């Protein structure tokens, strides 16, 4: 690890001087302090900390995996593994002609169903609004849910998708990664499924390690021989 990157916890001094504070840091006089457990990065004139723990904060356009918790006659409430519960209006699923009298929400989605959704809208004043009306979105009918820390999603994807491709190719699994840390793995073979799950959990546990892609590769290869 070079001098610019270091492990920090809340309160730790990241650097001093005329830097621009970005994510998970705080300017205190001329000191830049970390507000999270993570890895600090200084590049050009800005400073940030990549967190290693924390809840998912919704961002507009994010793909998330969501679980239906309940419904009213007009919308569903979904667990998006966040500080806030997401809601999905019935119109989004039934279309503009939705009628609260004629259409039964449970005919489309019921409690416990998993869906791939996008954050359509979210700000400080209201709970995240979800949409499933796009290609590749909607109810998930097969596969297994793996839960990782949302802060480790970028690591699971890897630089230009290298990590996730490595796992998919080695296991023949199809993996859908929600930005909220919920990941759906589907695979024809049980062995591939288990191996893919194991690799994802490994990334979750060892996200701070520098040569993680190599370690994951090694695990995937050694397991396939045995």
């Amino acid at each position: 690890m070079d001098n610019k990157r270091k492990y920090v916890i809340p309160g730790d001094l990241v650097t001093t001087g005329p830097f621009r504070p970005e994510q998970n840091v705080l300017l205190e006089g001329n000191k830049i302090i970390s507000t999270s457990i993570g890895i600090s990065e200084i590049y050009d004139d800005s400073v940030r900390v990549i967190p290693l723990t924390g809840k998912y904060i919704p961002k507009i356009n994010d793909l998330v995996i969501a679980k239906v918790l309940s419904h009213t006659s007009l919308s569903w409430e979904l667990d998006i593994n966040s500080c806030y519960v997401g809601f999905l209006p019935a119109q989004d699923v039934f279309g503009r002609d939705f009628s609260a009298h004629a259409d039964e929400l449970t005919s489309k989605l019921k409690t416990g169903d998993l869906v791939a959704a996008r954050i359509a809208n979210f700000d400080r004043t209201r709970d995240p609004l979800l949409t499933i009306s796009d290609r590749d979105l909607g109810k998930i009918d097969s596969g297994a849910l793996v839960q990782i820390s949302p802060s480790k999603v970028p690591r699971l994807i890897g630089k230009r998708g290298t990590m996730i491709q490595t796992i998919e190719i080695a296991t023949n699994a199809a993996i859908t990664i929600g930005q909220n840390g919920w990941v759906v793995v589907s695979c024809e073979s049980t062995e591939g499924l288990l191996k893919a799950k194991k690799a994802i959990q490994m990334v979750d546990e060892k996200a701070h390690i520098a040569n993680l892609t190599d370690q994951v590769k090694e695990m995937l290869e050694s397991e396939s021989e045995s």
Partner: protein
Amino acid sequence: MASHSVIDELKKTQILELLDQEKRVDGRALDEPREISIETNAVPKANGSAKVRLGDTEVLCGVKIQPDRPFPDMGDKGIFICTAELLPLSHPSVETGPPQPHVIELARVVDRGIRESHMIDLSQLVIEKGKSVVGVFSDIVVIDYDGNLFDACSYAATAALLTSTTPKWTMVDDKPTIVNGEEIPLPTTTIPVSVTMGKIGNHIIVDPNGDEWDSMDARITITTNSDGNICALQKGGNDGFTQEEVVQCGEISVRVGAKIREKLKEAQQGSR
């Protein structure tokens, strides 16, 4: 428990599909409990204590022994009281406040197993008949939840009681006063062991984990004593059992309970 927790449908389907092949999500046999670990004397200041892990369910029981007034109609017997609390840190759905019915049921089922097996010889816990007796308070707290609290709490309470020691009291000036000297083990007569079984479809599984618990149609908790006799029982859940199933559950509880009893004996001997 965990009334707010919703199991995802994919997992529920998977649990059912595997059971049809006589398999379980975590690879156990249908009549196989999860790994049990028992740490006695986890709270040295208590008269007895045990932290029990049953898979990822973790509970702690502390026993306090102190003089008390007897119940009016039971002046020749000591007192045994068992409580249980789901600590709010054990699961996001747990709320603080007065105990919910399912937590009260939990404490009563654990209490019943210990009481009805006559595990504690309460007749030996009398300081002065009708006036002062020894009270045994067994308080159980749930630290982390992953299904089957009945058995985890029952093993913790039993292990804590088996390793409890008590001072001796005598009446001085009409007040119970500790007799100086060594503490003696709490007088016990048998080791009750509960075995909780869930019914999913027409399968009976022992020691359901959290996901299995949320997928269950009905459950039954059967407590047996050291003689291999059945001494307490509780059926729960919104479905029923056939007569054959109930008999089958009785057999399982004796057989599986015997193995778990050995672990409790080991924990008792290990603490001495």
